[in-house]
């Protein structure tokens, strides 16, 4: 008889440790090879650890609830000499890291790929590369597989990516800001009990993590040079905008500071609301709707979190870049559009006869082109690196379309060369395909100026964010009858109802000054108030 030790196997995908949730055997129990002996929850999944031997359980080295680094001995077996199991004494079986669909979703299923390669290629024709198993899982979880960021080679979508997307923790996205190799904590210095997973824990454990959290109300950046953390923790840090080196911690590995996701969240919470630090608790109950899942971030019980992924994140990045790159100034004005309303009414039957649904948008586009021709700096792009402003010769107008998936901005090219009906047709086509998510990426590129029509939903004025690197964007309110002051028949001023169109023009103040913006707006308004001028366009 020999005694063989069994180490927690490497389950791959950057998982550094797991919580030993429960023992399924006790010392003295007879086990057979492949018989599950323990349940371990990693940040990926709840997995069963199978015995690699035929024999008897000799000793359990870890208590239920303990966090166990990969590679630590968790159990030993007294092995039958004549059994088959001896042959596999050196083997470290890899438990299947995929939980059943019914399993409790891990609060954060993110797991950065060890190779750190980042790739999110555009696939033409809206094609998503994913194996049938991942596609089926996506359907089960109600996930649009096309919206999942793939972490596999070339951006292939894996089942783990789908789960991560469904659970709101993001994909096993190897990308992000860190291009360097993710330091992987060595499985040493792990004697402490009660330590928590870097990225995952079951309900009730959260409060005990206070030890590693910064003092409430007064987060002091630790300012270390190096910090160890699991990839998933790094991801949490990126998402919460926290520098890992600043997160206070008492834990160490290999002599280096080791930071957990809880500590990151606690620190981020403290930074955001120093007076009322939220304890980093996580509700580990399965979300009733798999698409709306909890995540590892410090979310109060009962809150709902939704994944910040796909189109939403793309929009977010673009908005952030625009807002924090271009100093925005928004100029507001109101056009009185009696004549425009009348002109459209007159044209509508002709349009209908040609099968065209004529909205106000083509008129506005033409009026904008008139303004852009007069004030070309609004139809420009600032290239900071080259220290030049490019005045665009094309008049390609982006039309912001609200879709279920988020904001899409298809571009109508060469607006100056097209007639009203042609524009109407094109806008209708692009908008409807945007809503169906059937736009090709090329159809959203090449814009020189954008229009956002929030009035279609309701509202008068807003602050549109420029579709960077364009220089300006015009927001349209709703055309409605509003009180305007006009000269009456007897020469006195009177307040009368008239259809008006509120305009909100945001400009990049680096390129355009307020005066030019106002003049541009005046030209646009002049063409809207006197639509005959559009004939010249």
């Amino acid at each position, binding site marked *: 008889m020999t005694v063989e030790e069994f180490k927690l196997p490497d389950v791959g995908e950057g998982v550094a440790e797991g919580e030993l949730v429960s023992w399924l055997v006790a010392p003295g129990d007879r086990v057979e090879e492949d018989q599950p002996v323990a349940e371990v929850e990693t940040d990926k999944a709840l997995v069963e650890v199978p015995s690699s031997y035929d024999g008897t359980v000799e000793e359990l080295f870890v208590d239920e609830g303990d966090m166990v680094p990969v590679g630590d001995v968790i159990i030993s077996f007294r092995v039958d000499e004549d059994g088959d199991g001896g042959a596999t004494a050196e083997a470290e079986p890899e438990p299947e890291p995929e939980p059943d669909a019914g399993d409790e979703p891990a609060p954060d299923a993110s797991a950065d790929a060890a190779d750190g390669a980042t*790739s999110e*290629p555009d*696939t*033409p*024709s809206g*094609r998503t*590369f*994913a*194996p*049938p198993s991942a*596609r*089926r899982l996506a*359907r*089960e979880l109600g996930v649009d*597989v096309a919206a999942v960021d793939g972490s*596999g*080679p*070339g*951006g*292939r*979508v894996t089942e783990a990516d789908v789960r991560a997307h469904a659970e709101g923790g993001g994909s096993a996205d190897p990308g992000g800001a860190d291009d360097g190799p993710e330091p992987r904590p060595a499985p040493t210095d792990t004697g402490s009990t009660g330590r928590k997973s870097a990225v995952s824990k079951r309900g009730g454990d959260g409060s005990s993590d206070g030890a590693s959290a910064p003092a409430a109300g007064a987060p002091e950046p630790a300012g270390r040079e190096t910090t160890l953390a699991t990839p998933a923790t790094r991801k949490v840090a990126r998402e919460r905008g926290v520098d890992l080196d600043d997160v206070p911690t008492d834990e160490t590995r290999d002599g280096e500071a080791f930071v957990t996701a809880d500590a990151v969240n606690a620190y981020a919470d403290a930074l955001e609301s120093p007076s009322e630090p939220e304890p980093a608790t996580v509700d580990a109950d399965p979300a009733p709707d798999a698409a709306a899942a909890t995540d590892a971030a410090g979310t109060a019980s009962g809150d709902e979190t939704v994944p910040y992924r796909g189109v939403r994140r793309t929009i977010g990045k673009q908005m952030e870049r625009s807002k924090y790159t271009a100093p925005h100034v928004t100029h507001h004005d109101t056009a009185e559009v009696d004549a425009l309303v009348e002109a459209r009414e007159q044209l509508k039957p002709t349009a209908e006869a040609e099968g065209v649904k004529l909205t106000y948008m083509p008129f506005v586009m033409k009026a904008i082109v008139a303004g852009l021709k007069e004030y070309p700096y609004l139809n420009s792009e600032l290239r900071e690196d080259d220290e030049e402003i490019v005045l665009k010769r094309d008049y390609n107008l982006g039309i912001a379309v609200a879709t279920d998936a988020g904001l899409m901005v298809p571009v109508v090219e060469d607006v100056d060369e097209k007639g009203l009906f042609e524009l109407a047709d094109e806008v209708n086509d692009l908008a409807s395909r945007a809503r169906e998510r059937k736009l*090709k990426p090329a159809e959203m590129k090449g814009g020189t100026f954008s229009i956002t029509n929030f009035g279609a939903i309701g509202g008068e004025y807003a602050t549109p964010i420029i579709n960077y690197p364009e220089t300006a964007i015009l927001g349209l309110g709703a055309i409605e009858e509003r009180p305007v002051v006009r000269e009456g028949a007897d020469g006195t001023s009177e307040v009368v109802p008239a259809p008006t169109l509120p305009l909100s023009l945001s400009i990049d103040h680096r390129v355009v000054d307020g005066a030019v913006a106002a003049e541009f707006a005046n030209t646009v308004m002049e063409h809207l108030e006197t639509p005959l001028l559009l004939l010249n366009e």
Partner: protein
Amino acid sequence: MVVGDVTTGTEVLVIGAGPGGYVAAIRAAQEGLDTTLVEKDAYGGACLNRGCIPSKALITGSGLAHEAGNAEFMGVHADPAVDMGKMIEWKDGVVDRLTGGVEKLCKANGVNLVEGVASFVGENTVRVAHGGDGQGSETLEFEHAVIATGSRPIQVPGFDFAEDHVWSSADALDADTVPDRLGVVGGGYIGMELATTYAKLGAEVTVVEMLDDILDPYEDDVKRVVRKRAEELGVEFNFGEGASEWTEAPDGGYLLRTETEDGEESTYGVDKILVAVGRQPVTDGLDLENAGIETDDRGFVETDDRTRTAVEHVHAVGDVAGDPMLAHAASNEGIVAAEVIAGEPAALDRQAVPAAVFTDPEIGTVGMTEAEAAEAGFEPAVGEMPFNASGRAMTTGHTEGFVRIVADEETGFVLGGQIVGPEASELIAEVALAVEMGATLEDVAATVHTHPTLAEAVMEAAENARGQAIHTLNR
């Protein structure tokens, strides 16, 4: 309600026991649904009875005879004689075993089998007329239905399959003698499979095709390999000609008359005329309008990606639902239909459906061609491996053809493949797996393949696409 009718209820009614219908029925039953399968003719549908299986049996038989008689270059001398009656008997035995197996599987899975012709009388009701006078009929009420009535060969005006000498593909698979002269109308895959089969069995085969080449959907270099080989087997091709009529020849046999678009006529002396110009859906007699289902202008039932028709609880699968009209696509659709009915999150979410043509040599294709990939916006990376550079191909004596693999240059994802050559129908499965799994060229190239096998050519083609081929010059 007809006098004598009885009404029974079922959760799932499947009409047609071909590879779409019986698979749907079995899976529905496996899902715990009370399932009834109505078949008017024979279990297994066209595939088992009149298509894939019998044709492959004859192709194998004729191929074996031809191989044995043409292996002098290997030092094998033989003069095989084909007993066509015996071959058909063997083929029928294969078919019987398979169709019997289908019936047994259905029963074993708890599918209720009903023989007869189903027609809709409402959105949730069909009437099944049992065969023969006085056999009566019954009415079935269903919660969900799956239409899987398949397709039949299209007839050309003037060429009535009822005539003894005018063959449908089914007739060609049942003939117990080999005609001296066979005229084949249509150079599509069915026409070409049977043309090469009969050429190997000793018939003098003339193919008449309206288009200017055989096997319309395939790429030119793929067609070329098959056409060249068919010509070597003695098949004569006449392109740009449509069959116009037949007449009896004064000296016995028949004259197959053809006409070009310019009105030029030709006449070919034949003993049998095989008409293989395509297949049309079988929907007549179903009274689909009673269920509120319309067909498109070609008669196919339109379905969505969950195999649902315009009437949501009625599904359609297989040939009746249109392209791809392939048995394996039908089975896949049948499973999806059953699972959707059972509330599973199934869908036709496949990236590609492989197709095989059992000519000599075979063709196997899946996914995109180079042109299709470019059209779809990919930058195609294409690799090829000719079988004349394959050691295993040389040892089989069949070195014609090639493996081509098409991938996306940027990501390496395999998008498709075209194989023409020995065992192409088998080899294409590897490319299909790659396409479906989202495998990259590197994945395929770095997967160790058994040597010496034909499958190595797939690995080599993947290497070739990466500019790293060892056994061929990189293109």
